[in-house]
């Protein structure tokens, strides 16, 4: 099936197998490998992207469902070479170790801050319930998001 999708500001048109997951389209066809596959049950959040401005798990969607949509991935978050405040926050507050969950964490947090610019610690933790990190114990991820919240 043919799809038209705008990813990180660039328009693409591709023929895809109907069963292709959006995450595989992004990774395999567009070679945007910053979006990761960490599980097969939409449980880990490593594949989180923005679809028309909303954080979604790209392993839960078929590529054909993104037809006509705008997608933002971690690669498209920085603007004009300037890191997004969340990217800066994760660096400043040591919010990542192995880095595998990080793109998903950042994309989820970006959605949170859009709707709730000054979240409490509890609200941050609640917003991350669909994203698993095995390295940090979340302590510094929370601080990273608080850092970005202050900056934004």
């Amino acid at each position, binding site marked *: 099936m043919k799809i038209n999708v705008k990813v990180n500001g660039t328009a693409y048109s591709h023929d895809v197998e109907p069963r292709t997951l959006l995450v595989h389209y992004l990774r395999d066809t567009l070679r945007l490998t910053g979006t990761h*596959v960490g599980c097969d049950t939409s449980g880990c959040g490593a594949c989180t992207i923005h679809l028309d401005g909303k954080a979604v798990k790209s392993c839960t969607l078929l590529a054909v469902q993104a037809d006509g949509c705008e997608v933002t991935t971690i690669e498209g978050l920085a603007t004009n070479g300037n890191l997004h405040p969340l990217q800066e926050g994760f660096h400043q507050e040591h919010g990542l170790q192995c*880095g595998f969950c990080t793109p998903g964490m950042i994309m989820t947090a970006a959605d949170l801050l859009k709707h709730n610019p000054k979240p409490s610690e509890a609200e941050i933790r609640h917003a991350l319930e669909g994203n*698993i990190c095995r390295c940090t114990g979340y302590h510094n991820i929370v601080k990273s998001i608080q850092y970005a919240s202050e900056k934004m």
Partner: protein
Amino acid sequence: MTATKYIGKSIKRVEDKRFITGKANYTDDIVLPGMTYGAFVRSPYANAKVKKVDISKAKAMPGVVAIYTGADVAAVNGVPCGWQVNFKNGATMKEPKHPLLVADRTRHVGDPVAFVIAESRAEAKDAVEAVAVDYEKLSCVTDPAEAVKPGAPLVHDDVPNNICFDWELGNPKSEVDAAMSKASHITTLEFTNQRLVPNAMEPRSYIGSYDPINDKYTLYTSTQNPHLIRLLMCAFVLGLPEHKVRVVGPDVGGGFGSKIYHYTEEALVTWCSNKIGRPIKWTAERTESFLLDAHGRDHRTKAEMGFDKDGKIVALRVKTHANLGAYLSTFASCVPTYLHGTLLQGLYTTPKINVDVTGVFTHTNAVDAYRGAGRPEATYILERLLDLGALEMGKDPAELRQLNFIPPFDGVKQPGYQTQVALQYDSGNYEGVLKKGLEAFNYKDFRKRQKEAAKSGKILGVGISTYIEACGIAPSAVVGSLGARAGLYEVGQVRVQPTGKVSVYTGSHSHGQGHETTFSQLVADRLGIAMEDVEIIHGDSESVAFGMGTYGSRSLAVGGSAIVKSIDKIIEKGKKIAAHKLEASADDIDFADGRFTIKGTSKSLGFGDIALTAYVPHVYPKDLEPGLDFSSFYDPANFTYPFGCHIAEVEIDKETGKVTLTRFVAVDDVGTVINPMIVEGQIHGGVAQGVGQALFEGTIYDDEGNLTNPSFMDYCMPRADDLPMFETGSQVTPCPHNPIGAKGAGEAGCIGSTPAVVNAVIDALWSAGKKVKDIHMPLTPERVWSALQ
């Protein structure tokens, strides 16, 4: 002495940028020209005869390139075990073959029966569905205590009673029994230290590739130790010449032990890449990670601690059945023995200790080192017994520990402490961390708060754990005598470029630990240069001479020390070059802050001048080689012994039994710290995993040998809203036997935290009048609620 510009400072990580911008390079991100994709046909039965494998239909399916079955690899060796443990009678442990694909018998759910290679991931999976396997299902056993009983189903027909080894350490049983019989109080616990799934967020991924022109293989692998994988795969499995095999561990998304081992899939993609003449990628799906990444823990233990009337420990007796799974993973045999039994002295002066371990095969996935590896199991035994003993005897658990601590020793003026279980501790100040922990927690006011909370219907509890662990396992000669089939040194090469920039090649492997930052800090400070002028290279057997990798919290203590050895050689040679140019004796040259100076004068040359001279040796000592590039092997004199005090506070919801971790204080002494931010991060992550074991995690096998919770929907991983902010503190007792003073921080959090949390729950229950001794981990709401009734 060079002033420290970087060491001890929380420098932000230099490797972060690629991870936060989506530009990291994990194995699954790599695409090679002509690459194919692999998928496995895996056994749905824990124990079954494989009567027939029919691949004819699958082979004809679109995109299928090749299919291999157990018969095809029958002549290929299995993956080896790297540590030999002997039976008490001296016989060698049982080591059944662990084949790349099974031919006639499956021994756990997920055992691979066929490997399908196709043009795409989807086509490979389609073809897997079309492979028809005729199984004859047999009965199975999953519990190690059951597996040793007469008549239990056998995992391997030639391993009687499923016993891989039996083993003991410490004082003779008769002496321990005698000491125990004189105890005025004996605290006993019988429990399961449950099986855990490591769950690194990056699933294992491998790409095998073969270049027929140069007869050369490349394996990309999400591993913690590329050189070790190359050695094991070449020498023991595939019989390939090592110089014709390149192993690359690119960015790796967490390991926690599970990516130490040489897995069958690594060897299989490498072997098949030659057969089909094209690269093959296999990436585990999360279900496969749950089923097949080597699991951790799984001990059935009876432990008894005897106290005299004052509370001094007089004896410790431990009997454990350790579940090894169906096959021996790379280090499976040393975890319940040399990494568990040897830690049962803890921080205490216990005079008589005996530990008896039976290693048992069952029809389950392999069990091996998972963050902490044996030390969490040992710490859990000791710290649970101490807190429970305190409750039973009506003593304060902090005071009971204080009474039993080994007194402080620095390992220099005072000798190391010889334990009853084979180790000699390097240096320690155990009462120091306890004191700091109690103060940070405000322990003295806790009982008052607990009583006040009880008045408003809340059940609070406090739990303490004071742990010791052993890192940087070494020296090679000693571990060799204990059964290790590898050396446990590390390699560090420091190459000074002609312009004075420095490339460092380390055999350590970072999969989240921040080596590119910590090692740069270390090198820059020692050479008196800017951190930006140092590059850390790791993970590729083609660029790094050799290496033993990263596990057992060894990178800084062992890998860092190898780098320091090379730096020392650089400085020594630099002094000779400087002396020649400055017309002085090398003995009269000092090196500090990046300058070589004639003692007592202002005549000096910079590091950059010396580097350039070494490569443009026009004015140069006659008897000295050009160049400034040294490689060193560092084999430590001893293990290192980090220790610490963890204190947990929990609140139990009376109505539901839900445990909330309200506070967690961790005071860890990991020796000299290079980057406190990174060390704290390691502690946070370790604590979260330890809390995960206490409250949330655990495999559930049914009677048929099925893992019934093999997904993130079913296996409860700690999430952000399950945990509080952690309160960390530190104490520094340098390691006396390595040049950095570092002891290791990677596993400490995971070792200390689990018993602290469980102790806190038990304390809470006792405060509510429920004098329970134990609740099986994880302490789910249902189990805690039941204990409250």
